[in-house]
């Protein structure tokens, strides 16, 4: 009897581990910034190069940071969905244009519409590393105290807007500053 039970148990244990492994998404690396202050940045604005934007400018309101680039194919796919999100919510969406050129970025926003309240750009530099960006698009949600509450890696889907972003924004807006 034992002869059958031991291999069966081993099989079940292995099956459980493998099943869990199948469900894991290797791209979903937990951000160490969740529930911590938004990292510092000071970047040139895309449409007003004489002005800069820092994270303290955004303090006091719920806001989103979307990291994108004109060369990034999945950002292009995400773009109409971001437009929809911008339409459905009043919170500012800051677009961080990652490793891009001003011309290409402006062009894309003209072509596909501009979901961003403010766009900032950095061709080279540390802002990407400071935010722990490793694959565009990435979206961060900050609360009124400038604490990172959520990070979304990869393109946002229409489903994510309804199920994740809108409820989270409503919840964060109800919190005290």
């Amino acid at each position, binding site marked *: 009897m034992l002869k059958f039970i031991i291999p069966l148990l081993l099989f079940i244990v292995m099956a459980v581990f493998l099943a869990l492994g199948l469900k894991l998404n*290797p791209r979903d*690396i*937990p*951000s*160490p910034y969740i529930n911590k202050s938004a*990292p510092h940045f000071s970047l040139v604005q895309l449409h007003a190069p004489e002005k800069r934007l820092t994270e303290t400018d955004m303090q006091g309101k719920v806001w989103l940071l979307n990291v994108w680039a004109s060369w990034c194919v999945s950002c292009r796919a995400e773009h109409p969905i971001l437009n929809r999100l911008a339409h459905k919510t009043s919170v500012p969406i800051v677009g961080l244009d990652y*490793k891009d050129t001003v011309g290409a970025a402006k062009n894309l926003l003209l072509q596909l519409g501009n979901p961003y309240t403010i766009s900032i750009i950095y061709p080279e530099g*540390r802002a*990407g*590393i*400071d*935010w*722990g960006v*490793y*694959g565009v698009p990435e979206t961060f949600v900050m609360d009124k105290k400038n604490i990172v509450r959520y990070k979304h890696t990869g393109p946002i889907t229409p489903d994510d807007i309804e199920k994740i972003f809108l409820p989270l924004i409503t919840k964060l807006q109800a919190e005290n500053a």
Partner: protein
Amino acid sequence: MRSYIFCLLLLLNTAVLAVSIDAKKFASAEQEATYSTLIAELRCLVCQNENIANSNADLAKDLRRQVAEMVNQGKSKQEIKHYMQTRYGDFVLYRPPFKIKTGLLWIGPFAFLLIGLIVIYLYARRKKRLKTITLNEEEK
């Protein structure tokens, strides 16, 4: 013989490539060694199964440059690892810290080795017992 030479040439070829990816300048050999160990121990998050020393991804290039800059500023290995860890999490380290979450990762192999040894021991003991029993029967 010909294929052997071909393989050898291939090897030589990659060695040249690896050097030419990007050469960084350091003040001392010690700093260069720090840089080499660090880039071998940091994971490229885009390609995931490569360290930033071997990866050609843009992110790996950026991280290499960042590590080189910090080494040149005289930052210690620990400081640089901490810098990366606060930004990218434990996953960026090829040697994750020992925590509850990573416990299975660290202890797992030893646990399996132990289980294997116990199984072998039990198996050997049973076989020995069987042998003595059959011997006894033959003796009868």
